[in-house]
């Protein structure tokens, strides 16, 4: 008899185990399947910096959280409905994220004394009263997988590596999801090691059948597809969206893409992604250090290519001097900063948005540089494309900010039409542009951009460099008045980019009590909180800034329309400082610096507090 299916609106699942247990892999598969059947989905991979920390240790726990819904969602969820743990350490690290009465699936085979001790448990929590407020399912995942695969040719160690698919099979059953997409993926993944295809598929099926057969699981759940705008969709991670955005900018501008990089978490996936696309003419160069990586981008820009470099905070610190060279030389490069928790090496696999002031100010001298930030995984495509557009149009380095949370998080993306992409026109100077001496700092009167003259162009031979240069001619100059003038021109050029920024979109109330002002990867949590208050009819709005330097022209006016400006940030208040000093207003910060994204309830708590204050006045 078929077991009953319960309709629910949304679910949040967290897979956790040792780094080698394959939690990331089955999390990604569950995400793919869920997106393909039409739910909205958001993910949060959470893994340690160690590639393989000691087995069973708290330090080695790797997790993958996904939230899916029949409605539009913006975050990977605060608390989980289902927690799958492969060992006691995973339970210890993640139990606090499970909702009361939530489902806990534990691989009981791994709850032996040694693993319990490693996780700091005196006694087996599965046997004690510690978990009474949850629905606990003890599953002998290791033994069941071994029994399933005992007739295969695989060694026990190899068989044990299939147990994550047994677990995935269970979850697919629990949420009534088809197994076919995962099977297809397994076949592709192990195309060169075909001996692993059948066993992984067998484990997947066995996990599925186990739930169907065993009396433990009495009910399964279904989440209907979410309403999406018409279009063609795919699932995409932020770093991959960045890769596609860069290739699109290269393609649409006709400029060859040269990407210089040095390996660093969490930016390396952009290098890996781009390196696959040589057939798009993409040149990737893994350089000897961060400085060389930005150096090749600058050289490529001087030669007339789209020069791009990517890194994270520590790498940006090293690149600062070279970025400043591109600034004064007025060459178009794009610098991607996929932020992680600092300072110094900090927490390389945890998210944060604490490099904003570094990007604003972390260079010697007066050094204005445009900054564009992406707000969610798929937004990386548009935001990095916009960074390229600004760089080329205004002949300036542009910083593109992303972070680990959106860089590695995934969600469905409505694939844009190529015709929707803004134009990027290099407008190179030609030999015809000059009849006498070429003037490399003669500016466009509207944008203040200087000419871009490629080496190889007859008659435009010129010299540039890091020394202050004379207005118009570009010759080296120590003239005091000229220096001040050049400083002002460079600032004014960046300020004029605001003329390109479309009117700011305010979600919710257009004026009223509270404006939630955010930037970057906090979009999901802030928008979810805003939606909740707007649904209650409260006068709360949300503005999420893509352009951080310059700010949009209409921002000053928008800020005046609300009684309180609340700025949630995963730092100690960096946009907060900029807004307060730029607009002389008493904005309030909501700050979290734990290497973890906001929970929506954390925002609710602060917003409720402010609302109360407003009522009292």
């Amino acid at each position: 008899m078929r077991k009953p299916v319960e309709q629910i609106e949304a679910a949040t699942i967290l897979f956790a185990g040792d780094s080698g247990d394959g939690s990331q892999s089955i999390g990604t598969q569950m995400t793919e399947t869920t997106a393909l059947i039409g739910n909205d989905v958001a993910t949060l991979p959470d893994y340690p910096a160690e590639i393989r920390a000691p087995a069973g240790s708290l330090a080695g726990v790797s997790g993958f959280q996904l939230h899916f819904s029949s409605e539009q969602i913006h975050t990977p969820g605060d608390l989980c409905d289902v927690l799958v743990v492969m060992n006691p350490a995973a339970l210890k690290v993640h139990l606090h994220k499970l909702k009361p009465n939530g489902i806990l699936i534990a691989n009981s085979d791994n709850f032996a004394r040694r693993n319990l001790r490693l996780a700091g448990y005196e006694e087996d929590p599965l046997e004690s009263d510690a978990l009474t407020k949850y629905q606990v399912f003890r599953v002998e995942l290791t033994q069941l997988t071994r029994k399933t695969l005992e007739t295969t040719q695989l060694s026990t160690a190899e068989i044990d590596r299939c147990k994550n698919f047994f677990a995935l099979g269970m979850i697919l059953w629990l949420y009534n999801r088809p197994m076919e997409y995962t099977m297809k993926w397994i076949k592709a993944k192990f195309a060169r090691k075909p001996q692993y295809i059948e066993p992984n598929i067998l484990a997947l099926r066995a996990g599925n059948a186990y739930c169907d057969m065993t009396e433990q699981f009495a009910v399964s759940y279904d989440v209907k597809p979410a309403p999406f705008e018409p279009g063609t969709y795919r699932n995409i991670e932020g770093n991959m969206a960045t890769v596609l955005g860069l290739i699109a900018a290269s393609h649409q501008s006709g400029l060859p893409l040269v990407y210089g990089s040095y390996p660093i978490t969490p930016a390396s996936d952009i290098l890996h992604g781009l390196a696959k696309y040589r057939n798009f003419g993409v040149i990737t160069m893994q350089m000897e250090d961060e400085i060389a990586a930005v150096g090749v981008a600058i050289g490529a820009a001087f030669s007339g290519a789209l020069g791009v470099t990517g890194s994270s905070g520590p790498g940006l610190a090293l690149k600062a001097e070279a970025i400043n060279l591109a600034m004064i030389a007025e060459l178009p490069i794009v610098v991607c900063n996929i932020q992680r928790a600092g300072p110094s090496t900090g927490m390389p696999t945890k998210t944060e948005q604490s490099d904003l002031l570094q990007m604003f100010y972390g260079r010697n001298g007066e050094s204005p540089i445009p900054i564009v930030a992406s707000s969610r995984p798929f937004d990386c495509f548009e935001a990095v494309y916009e960074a390229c557009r600004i760089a080329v149009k205004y002949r300036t380095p542009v910083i593109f900010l992303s972070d680990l949370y959106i860089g590695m998080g995934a969600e469905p993306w409505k694939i844009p039409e190529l015709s929707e992409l803004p134009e990027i026109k290099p407008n190179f100077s030609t030999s015809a542009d000059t009849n006498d001496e070429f003037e490399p700092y003669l500016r466009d009167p509207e944008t203040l951009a200087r000419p871009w003259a490629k080496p190889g162009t007859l008659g435009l031979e010129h010299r540039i460099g890091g020394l202050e240069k004379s207005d118009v001619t570009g010759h080296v100059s120590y003239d005091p008045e000229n220096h001040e003038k050049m400083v002002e021109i460079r600032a004014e050029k960046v300020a004029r980019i605001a003329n390109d920024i479309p009117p700011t979109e305010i979600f919710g109330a257009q004026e009223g009590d509270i404006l939630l002002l955010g930037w970057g990867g906090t979009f999901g949590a802030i928008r979810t909180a805003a939606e909740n208050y707007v649904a209650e009819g409260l006068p709360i709005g949300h503005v999420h800034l893509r352009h951080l330097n310059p700010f949009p022209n209409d921002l000053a006016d928008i800020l005046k329309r609300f009684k309180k400006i609340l700025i949630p940030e995963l730092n100690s208040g960096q946009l907060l400082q900029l807004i307060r000093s730029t607009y002389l207003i008493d904005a309030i910060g909501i700050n979290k610096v734990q290497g973890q994204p906001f929970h929506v309830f954390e925002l609710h708590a602060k917003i409720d507090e402010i609302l109360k204050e407003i009522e009292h006045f």
Partner: protein
Amino acid sequence: MKRKRTSRIPVGAPTLTRNDFKSDQDVRWCPSCGDYSILAQTQRVLPELGIPKENIVFISGIGCSSRFPYYMNTYGFHTIHGRAPTIASGVKMANPDLSVWVITGDGDALSIGGNHFIHLMRRNFDINVLLFNNRVYGLTKGQYSPTSERGQKMYQSAPIGSLDTPFNPLSLALASGATFVARSVDVHADHLRPMLKAAFEHKGTSFIEIYQNCHIFNDETFILQRKKEHKTDHTVLLEHGEPLVFGAEHDKGIRLNGFQPEVVDLTDGEHTIDDLIVHDQHAEDTTLANFLAGMSDTPDMPHPMGIFRSVQHPCYENLMTKQIRTATERMGEGDLNALLHDGETWMVS
């Protein structure tokens, strides 16, 4: 000789002269600086290379030598300290048709830019690197550099004497896999010009160390190799396939004694030319080149001048171009729309 990528001046076009390569900027090195001579020889050689001047790019870092691009009427980029190799790599990669020249000094290339220098050598871009070695930081007024001799007194930063062991730029370049390594002297115009030309003709990274005087902060450095009256006894000219003979009367030679170089007198009746080391600049093995490079570290040995090594290896930019070509043949020319729709997609209507 493989064809250079750098496009040639069309037949019949007016030939360029030295003056075509002079920029309108006043040259501002100290009077009698060795850099004047290097600049003049470069401006004399470039018209002989047969390439249009708009295809030539000079890129420098920071230091006295790095002002060089401002004085050349070509494309030029005066960048930041030590980083010229990285920017030159980007310039060359984005347009392999350009003739790219890096101008650097001992501090710029070997101290702050040491890492970039060795990696440039191993990548083997078709780039020419001229290192002006005056064994001192001139622009910052007289500190010891990575090529200053140990114990040497530098009145600013080593008043009692430098403690560092100096780098040998040629040994470093050879250890990094450089395919063309040469040495010349600022004021030996007739030697420097052919070296510049050979560096240009070599396909791959060409490295020339140029001994250079700093009249202000390290006057008379390399005096024995630079001055006419000394140089015949203190330098030995390297010629491919020729024995290592030197001296005013060609009366001395270098032979191998164990693993050490030894100066022998060819007039003493005991030694003949057949005892001497014969130079082979095309040897794939770097033992001989390393041995010759090490001679300048050995007291009382003449310093070899000329081409130490010149071998053909694939250039980075050509390998990259080949990867792009192969990938395009295999996967077809990139189709952006197809790329955006790559993988599993679904329609919502």
